[in-house]
């Protein structure tokens, strides 16, 4: 083995060890790294009333009710579970039924999620309006599918 080969082997070995260590750390921290919890996570873990979490999923179609004085209630769903949400404030422009959202706030004792901020999440499809309309017309449209993982 020449000195160059020895140095290369050393670097590759160190690289494998570092990659393995990094993978273990990230795997261990998965619960901390995820940005939001889905309605199914909430159903499984029952977060305590008053503890702050981020709830992410799709705004259930037909669930948005706008009160007077900027109060909005809607349901966040991942197509298997759903959580009722209330929010007072200005919603992002992309907020609409069927759209991905991430709401940050706390659960109240009656199981309603009281959001303090609502962020809109969009998926990775970009297209002009005409193409979107044509897809919807021909029935090939797939709804937002990237949230609620």
């Amino acid at each position, binding site marked *: 083995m020449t000195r160059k080969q020895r*140095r290369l082997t050393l670097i590759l070995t160190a690289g494998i060890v*570092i990659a393995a260590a*990094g993978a273990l750390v990230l795997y261990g921290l998965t619960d901390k*790294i*995820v940005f939001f919890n889905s309605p199914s996570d909430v159903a499984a873990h029952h977060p305590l009333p008053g503890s702050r979490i981020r709830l992410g999923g799709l705004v259930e179609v037909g669930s948005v009710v706008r009160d007077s004085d900027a109060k909005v209630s809607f349901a966040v769903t991942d197509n298997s579970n759903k959580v009722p949400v209330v929010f007072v404030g200005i919603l992002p422009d992309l907020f609409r039924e069927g759209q991905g959202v991430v709401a940050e706030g706390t659960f109240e004792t009656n199981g309603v999620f009281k959001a303090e901020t609502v*962020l*809109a*999440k969009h*998926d990775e*499809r970009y297209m002009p309006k005409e193409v979107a309309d044509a897809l919807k017309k021909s029935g090939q449209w797939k709804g937002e599918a990237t949230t609620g993982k």
Partner: protein
Amino acid sequence: MALVDFANPTRFVALTARVTPWLIALTIALFAVGLYGTALAPDDYQQGATVKIMFIHVPCAWLSMFVYATMAISSLGTLVWRHPLADVAARAGAPLGAAFTFVCLATGSLWGKPMWGTYWVWDARLTSELVLLIMYLGLIALWQTIEDPLKAARAVAVLTLVGVINLPIIKFSVDWWNTLHQPAAVFRMDGPTIDPSMLWPLLVMALAATCLFLTLHLLAMRNEILRRRVRTLRLMEAARPGVGSERSA
């Protein structure tokens, strides 16, 4: 002339002088086509005209990782082959990579406010890209800290290679964890999810950004070679017997 001849710094400087005008012309032409395509590209069905930020944001994001990858390959050149140009290449790339990363973060922030409703969140994609910016700044600082260029080159090369672990984290952060940032739209297993009318200007802009990097990188490498020569000449001058005593007299 074989490829190995360009490893000679003098030949390399001569080569950059010949290639640079062509690269500059190519960069300008690609940006002209890319920006024209960006202006022509239709508005997004959801995001409207805001989607045009993508044509700057995404090429900068790709370049921020591409530049780091080239620095990592240079670091192997420094550590394994002790190549004289390898550290020059890495050092010239670092500020460019930092600039692309910064523009990526800044444009992403400006895009996030109208679409997501926030300038910044600590999700895995945004955080790992910020870590990349800090890595670049840390590497630049480390070069400045160690005075002996050989020692500096080796220390920085080791740190650069350790930082490579961040590249797959950035790329796959949107797949491994749920994030506010959407998953990849172009480089994905089942093909791009972006309409061809928007995809081609994006790819041209990415090519233009790559050519811009190559141009600036070659020029920065040439400057770095000349800077090192000046340093060597100064050291030789200072070491010459009699020079110091003449001055003090």
